[in-house]
């Protein structure tokens, strides 16, 4: 019976949250006065979805917040649906959103009327890594051999599977193509990272740039082989994942002569026009969540780069990366008309 009451409560709360536009705001030590609307600008099952639902779990389990946290997927238009919703909740501190690279790529690629400045940056929770994966049965053992194989093969014969179109996976693919020139790869977009990993196991594509968490299970099972990590330095996780390898044993792409780096933001933003004490509340909340053992395990499972940032430092980082994405996408010809 009690479960049912809670269900009804939570359901009613979900409605209440979006109906009310403003809540009373206290000057000091602000706390939410109604349920928090936690938007995921992506579909179910992906990396952002997993992290948001995991955070919801950690916050609920450890009673870090008095009000319930309600997670909603708004992935329409490559996440534009979610961003536009938060943009429209100006001044209301009960709406937060988890972002991935589509914070930058979606407005640039689709031309929807949105830019990151329309949101209030809260904190960077972590950076998600990218790894070059091939099927375990593939002949190339290193990234170098892989690049050589693409070069030696027919143009466009080599298939790279990735999540979405004109987004991070394809940006990395275009960067790799600088090394395989004049040969190009064929980029095949799929709905989600899990599907990409499975397609690679089934040999329907030749390689992928899956995030660690999307491919780790198939790596453990001996189906996929990591070639290199798209980061400046190796992973810090030294516990063995497979019988012989830990995340830290994967060479960086730089080490093997593939000069491409890319990491993806996993950060929290909130509605525009909120007060500093609102932002401070969420920074504190997520700091508490990140101090739990559950979160540490989650970070290690997904081999995340644990960089925490908030305040002006974070805003600066977002600014720099927005510019970086603009340049990358311009070079690749991914910009929407008028951008």
């Amino acid at each position, binding site marked *: 019976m009690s*479960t*049912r009451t*809670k*269900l009804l409560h*939570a*359901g009613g709360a*979900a*409605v209440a949250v*979006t109906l009310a536009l403003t809540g009373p705001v206290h000057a000091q030590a602000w706390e939410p006065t109604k349920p928090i609307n936690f938007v995921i600008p992506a579909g*179910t*099952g992906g990396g952002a*979805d*997993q992290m948001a*639902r*995991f955070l*919801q*779990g*950690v916050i*609920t*389990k450890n009673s870090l917040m008095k009000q*319930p946290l309600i*997670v*909603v997927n*708004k*992935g*329409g*238009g*490559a996440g534009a*649906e979610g961003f536009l919703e938060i943009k429209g909740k100006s001044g209301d501190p009960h709406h937060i959103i988890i972002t991935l690279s589509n914070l930058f790529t979606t407005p640039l*690629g*689709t031309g*929807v*009327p949105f830019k990151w400045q329309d949101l209030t940056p809260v904190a960077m929770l972590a950076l998600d890594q990218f790894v070059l994966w091939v099927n375990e049965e593939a002949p190339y053992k290193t990234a170098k051999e892989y690049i050589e194989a693409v070069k030696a093969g027919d143009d*466009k014969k080599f*298939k790279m599977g990735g999540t*979405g*179109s*004109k987004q991070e996976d*394809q940006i990395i693919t275009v960067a790799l193509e600088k090394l395989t020139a004049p040969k190009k790869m*064929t980029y*095949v*977009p799929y*709905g989600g990272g*899990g599907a990409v*990993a*499975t397609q690679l*196991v*089934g040999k*329907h*594509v030749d390689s992928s740039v899956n995030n660690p968490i999307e491919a*780790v*299970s*198939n790596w*453990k*099972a001996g*189906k996929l082989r990591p070639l290199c990590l798209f980061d400046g330095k190796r992973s810090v996780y030294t516990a063995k994942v497979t019988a012989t390898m830990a995340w830290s044993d994967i060479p960086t792409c730089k080490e093997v002569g593939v000069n491409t780096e890319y990491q993806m933001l996993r950060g929290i933003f909130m509605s525009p026009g909120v007060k500093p004490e609102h932002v401070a509340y969420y920074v504190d909340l997520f700091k508490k969540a990140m101090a739990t053992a*559950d979160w540490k395990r*989650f970070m290690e*499972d997904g081999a995340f780069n644990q960089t925490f940032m908030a305040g002006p430092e974070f805003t600066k980082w977002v600014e720099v990366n927005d510019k970086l994405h603009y340049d990358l996408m311009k070079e690749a010809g991914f910009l*929407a008309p008028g951008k």
Partner: protein
Amino acid sequence: MALEEIVSLMHGFSVALTPFNLALMFIGILLGVIIGVLPGLGGANGVAILLPLTFTMPPTSAIILLSCIYWGALFGGAITSILFNIPGEPWSVATTFDGHPMAQKGRADEALTAAFTSSFVGAFVAVILITFLAPLVAKLALKFGPAEFFAVFFLTFASFIGMGKGSPWKTLASMCLGFALGSVGLDKMTGTLRMTFGHEELLKGFDFLIAVIGLFGIGEILSSMESGLKFQGAQAKIRFDAVLKTWRKLLGYWATSIRSCIIGCWMGITPGGATPASFMSYGIAKRFSKNGDNFGKGEIEGVIAPETAAHAAGTSALLPMLTLGIPGSPTAAVLLGGLMIWGLQPGPMLFVEQKDFVWGLIASMYLGNIAGLIVVLTCVPLFAAILRVPFSIIAPVILVICAVGAYTVANAMFDVWLMLVFGVMGYAFQKLGYPLAPLVLAIVLGDKAEEGFRQALLGSQGGLGIFFSNPLVASIMGLGLILLFWPLLVAMKGRLGASAPASLATAAVGAATGSVAAPPPAIASPSPPAVHTPAVLAVPLIKPQQSEAASPMAERIRVLERENDDIRTRLKKAGIDPSLGTDTDEARRLQRLELENVWLKKLLAEAVLAGKS
């Protein structure tokens, strides 16, 4: 090999069969049924809302609770489909085609029992499959690339084509409108927006649920209002022996059940999913059934086929989720999120690293389904009694539930307006004789089919040969093509055989449809009773040597006549003289049928004449 699985399963039962877990099972089923009844809330939202409650439980108990909510929601979806013509989930759409007409005829209890029992049978067969074939099945799923996915969707569309009852052009128009609506939003292949015309509301495209709640739910209320503000199922009797009676009836449809189980399991394993499975199963059952022409008017077989297949597919789809880590449905995705919080990593290693959990889950599938069947079957008379509530009370309630459901999908008021627009559209479609099913099918599967098609062509650099490049994809495509051109093939076979006296095909079809001896000139190009041929194919059928007895129209007339007789007898039993006017819905229906009958006869006569001259 098999022994090892049985031992593991027994171990699983010992994990699942604690009083605490059993209690969770029944709570889960009850919650699930409630969630399933509310359209829009749906299994995914229900599981998401309840997920945090399970964090304090051991993982096995938590997954038992959550998966039982999932089963309950699956059972619950059938209730609104049958009673109010509102499918809560994509795979319940096909259940409305015959389930709702049955309810309108006062046979809601039968329809519900058939639906629940079929779901159970489908799910149970699939669980057995999971138990013994898990590793093999996981391997098959890996064989599915974009071309194979497209082939499965193609097969679904093809097996569905014969379903339109009216003009085949109307079916085509309806389907194309569905494709157009389905393509609004982000084009996943190029990452650009299309057909949004700068409107932010259209970014996310047209959600299936909003379309269906409007087209079916609101549309139904509008037509009920027109026909006198009452539900035709109002005279539903509450029969407590309905369950047993229906079960006896169901035994006669064992062939349909087995076929639907096979379709469902196959579609679940090859990750086609429950929705294509239910449509495909319905289409194929219609084609092979002796009563194919009665499909859509309240044929119990039309409930059995989609329900069995949907649940066989829904259950066997859990397997790819566990072994590959790909969620087969939004609900499965939320469950996946849950797994991670409990520290379980879905994927090939789950079966090795978390034996307790996996076998506990599989055991709970057996137990949860049995618990679910008991719960819902005992409630059948209760559910059926809902239809006795006066329309003036229930209609506003349904309207509110529909509106809340549409709102819940994306917490957007725009969707509620959209739902109303779809409602008016559904009503207009009904009035103009445009079928809704192809529209819905195209909205649900159109973009997935497009995605598979374009991904495959990207890989092959434009070569269509990819769709026939290996035995797996070639056989699925081949099967699809055969189903698509089945009416034409039969017609050609008939023509070829026509030179021989009394061709086998004519005799066979004549016998199957129970037709009276075909009058000369009986050189037939017969079409099987279940097939409504598209116009292009239908044209040759009304050519000179058309057998009057075996033509689709003559068959339809016979059905109408049979129905007229049936209604007359029932009216007589109820003490109503059918000639006495139009007080009752049945009398009105009879009049309409008779009019249609006269008109059809005239048409047929003209066609025969035109052929002879």
